[in-house]
């Protein structure tokens, strides 16, 4: 197509449907900075009458929309084009235009809707999902409904979320004939046939497709879905394979007597077995502070805590640092004045709700609702633990007061179920209302997104968990996907309260303090999930657990988990993942590792990258420089995996 003809027709392009707030999650051949940008997903009619799906990044929408020329549309060429740009005005414009993604409807082969209707993927080529979009506002339902006005689709039975785009005239005939030839239902006069016949009259095409896809189920998954119909003849299977390839589904089917979905995945390096260390002891803790009480080796402390946790005798003190209540580099006297300030602040916030009259409360429904929620939950938080047990236990009042004061501290967030679970171990350890409150504030700051009104934070984490699992334990991830559990909702409780319901108080304290270090990577708690699930993989798969059994099994793991074993295997999985040759940017981003394909990380920068990462993970404040002077990096070896140890001191302490 020549450029002049493009210009002529662009005048006539028309947006048939637009959906705002659509995030580009993945696209083949795109630069990584394009990913995760928000834009508008549209169905567009071109001047020549053809239609396409188009995604435009938000920062582009102000630019004239007549810049869509056909050549930009080919998704796979965009990456190449961007490399040729030099930064002048025209090419900025071109860069922006190149970021538009176009999928001509005539090329669209299949699309699917996943993640609770919030994610859509498109494919123009069998076996590859080229683009993935995430619907931030609402879901994909309306978009799909509009799209179905423009393409004829059929759902595949083995994955009800996947739509195959079909050309009705040709395909219907083929399928009708295929179905007649199959003739497998006629022997038994059951409601199956009755329904089939009646449905067939009303909706011939859909009925055929659905019956047909049921057959693919038999071939794919064995025939447990069809009662008593166990003999699918070779002939039928053969016909099915032919038609399957005609449909060009995204899966690759090989015929080897038995039919299997074949996928070749690169394997991870072997998992190193990294022993846990001993808890940070009083002596070591004191040894890491200067005479005035400043913690001089923050990274070292964190490393030690990551390796072995904190001895119970000093938890009360160390947690205040880990939860950002105490700054690491404050002296004892500075801390005393900080504590005085925070105490005043706490009690003035507490007074705000304590001084509310009954009349005020009666006219303040939002406050009242929160108070009632807090009361309900306080009465059912860890009541079996002696600290909270029994009627009229004064600790329940403290629990209630802290949560109510937090409502005043952060009224927008208010009180959400799960917060009482988060607070209980803190209060149990601190035994002091003010300290518990400020530690709770610090913990909440780390996990506030878990309690989002729209649960976006939870959904995001569940998605990341799914992606990590697919990389670290693909066989299990696929099993979950097949059993309608790919959304990982069964891990909701784990993530919401950071495994609080899964472990005893003693163990949850260990797990939390390790996770608070932020080591060895971002989102290590998701790797803890992966470690727990991976340990159950054989049960899930060998017993062919389905949707309900998976949820039940996961819920029943509560109080049966070994915290040290899990932490050790989560760390092992971390090393497996990061040393995998096929490590993707998607996984790097989840783990907080800079992606390879960024423009900033050119080869000349690479030498400094690891250092800057360490700084980013470290204290971040200017006083870190002091510690850096005596920071000599050492490397520890376990089973061939190299673990960086930041300082000589830590090295000595570990030895």
């Amino acid at each position, binding site marked *: 197509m020549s450029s002049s003809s493009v210009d002529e027709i662009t005048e006539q392009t028309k947006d048939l449907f637009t959906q705002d707030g659509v995030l580009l999650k993945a696209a083949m051949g795109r630069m990584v900075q394009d990913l995760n940008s928000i834009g508008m997903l549209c169905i567009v009619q071109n001047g020549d009458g053809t239609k396409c799906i188009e995604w435009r990044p938000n920062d582009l929408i102000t630019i004239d929309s007549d810049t869509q020329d056909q050549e930009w549309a080919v998704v796979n060429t965009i990456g190449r084009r961007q490399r040729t740009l030099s930064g002048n005005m025209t090419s900025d414009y071109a860069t922006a235009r190149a970021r538009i993604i176009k999928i001509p409807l005539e090329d669209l082969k299949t699309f699917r809707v996943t993640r*609770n209707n919030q994610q859509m993927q498109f494919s123009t080529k069998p076996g590859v999902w080229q683009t993935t979009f995430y619907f931030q506002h609402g879901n994909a339902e309306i978009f799909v409904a509009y799209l179905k006005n423009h393409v004829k689709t059929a759902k595949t039975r083995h994955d*009800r979320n996947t739509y195959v785009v079909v050309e009705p005239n040709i395909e219907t005939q083929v399928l009708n004939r295929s179905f007649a030839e199959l003739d497998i239902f006629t022997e038994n*006069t*059951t*409601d*199956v046939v*009755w*329904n*089939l016949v009646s*449905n067939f009259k009303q909706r011939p095409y859909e*009925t055929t497709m*659905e*019956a047909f896809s049921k057959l693919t189920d038999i071939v794919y998954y064995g025939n*447990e*879905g069809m*009662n008593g119909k166990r003999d699918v003849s070779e002939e039928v299977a053969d016909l099915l394979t032919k038609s399957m390839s005609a449909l060009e589904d995204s899966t690759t089917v090989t015929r080897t007597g038995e039919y299997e979905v074949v996928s070749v995945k690169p394997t991870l390096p072997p998992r190193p077995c990294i022993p846990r260390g001993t808890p940070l002891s009083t002596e070591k803790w004191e040894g890491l502070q200067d005479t005035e009480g400043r913690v001089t080796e923050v990274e070292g402390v964190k490393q030690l805590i990551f390796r072995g946790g904190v001895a119970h005798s000093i938890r009360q003190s160390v947690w205040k640092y880990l939860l950002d209540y105490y700054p690491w580099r404050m002296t004892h006297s500075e801390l005393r004045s900080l504590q005085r300030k925070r105490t005043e602040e706490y009690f003035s916030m507490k007074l705000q709700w304590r001084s509310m009259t009954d009349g005020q409360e009666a006219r303040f429904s939002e406050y009242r*609702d929160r108070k*009632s*929620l807090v009361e*309900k*939950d306080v*009465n*059912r*938080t*860890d*009541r*079996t633990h002696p600290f909270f*047990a029994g009627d009229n236990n004064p600790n329940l009042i403290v629990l209630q007061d802290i949560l109510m004061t937090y409502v005043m501290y952060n009224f927008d967030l208010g009180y*959400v*179920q*799960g917060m*009482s*679970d988060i607070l209980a171990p803190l209060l149990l350890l601190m035994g002091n209302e003010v300290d518990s409150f400020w530690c709770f504030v610090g913990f909440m700051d780390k996990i506030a997104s878990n*309690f*989002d*009104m*729209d*649960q976006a934070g*939870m*959904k995001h984490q569940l998605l990341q968990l799914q992606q990590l699992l697919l990389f670290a334990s693909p066989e299990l991830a696929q099993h979950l996907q097949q*059993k*309608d559990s790919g*959304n990982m*909702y*069964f891990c*909701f*409780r784990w993530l*919401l*309260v950071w495994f609080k*319901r899964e472990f005893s108080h003693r163990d949850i304290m260990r797990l939390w303090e390790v996770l608070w270090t932020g080591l060895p990577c971002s989102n290590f708690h998701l790797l803890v999930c992966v470690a727990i699930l991976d340990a159950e993989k054989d049960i899930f798969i060998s017993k062919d657990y*389905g*949707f*309900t*059994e998976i*949820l*039940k099994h996961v*819920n029943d793991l509560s109080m049966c988990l070994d915290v040290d074993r899990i932490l050790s295997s989560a760390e092992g999985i971390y090393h497996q993942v990061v040393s995998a040759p096929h490590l993707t940017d998607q996984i790097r981003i989840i783990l907080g590792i800079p992606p390879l394909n960024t423009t900033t990380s050119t080869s000349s920068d690479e030498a400094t990258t690891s250092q800057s990462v360490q700084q980013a993970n470290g204290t971040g404040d200017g006083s870190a420089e002091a510690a850096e002077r005596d920071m000599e990096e050492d490397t520890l070896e376990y089973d061939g995996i190299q673990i960086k140890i930041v300082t000589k001191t830590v090295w000595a302490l570990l030895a």
Partner: protein
Amino acid sequence: MAKTYDYLFKLLLIGDSGVGKTSILFRFSEDAFNISFISTIGIDFKIRTIDLDGKKVKLQIWDTAGQERFRTITTAYYRGSMGIMLVYDVTNEKSFENIKNWIRNIEENASADVEKMILGNKCDLDSKRQVSKERGEQLAIEYQIKFVETSAKDSLNVEYAFFTLARDIKAKMEKKQEASNPAPRTGGHQLRANEQQRKPTSWLSRCSLL
């Protein structure tokens, strides 16, 4: 696999936080009551197989977190439910008012043909009562849903409620089958053990397969 039941029904308990959903379920599945229950985070279910007119009916009862914020997650489990218990607390006016919202929530997320029942729980706490039995009955009439006051603590009407809901589902299912299958050979199409692993859809569509 040896079949240990004739029917499998998926039921769901919904209602405001703290109305006693978990306690009702615990009473029904374990015949026990625990004053210091923990709040439900996420979702869980329990199983009890009951005998209903000579048939073994396996009830898979799902228990959900009540707080509104978690609804985006919990509604994902509505699909495939055949019966829903709407629970309020007779000592909490707000939980009663919210029943209307829960019904709307069901209409948006569950199958249209799902059987429903309203339970006014904690009826043992008469001194703290805020919602009279008459108002509960009135609401039930308004929505044409069965209603009963229960006490998980005193084990009052909990069995009755689940048996009633199960019986209604069974009757509806058998009626539907007669209509769609003129010559039933075994007295009704039966759900199979492996059905529970399938994608949740309208439960009636499971019975008719297509």
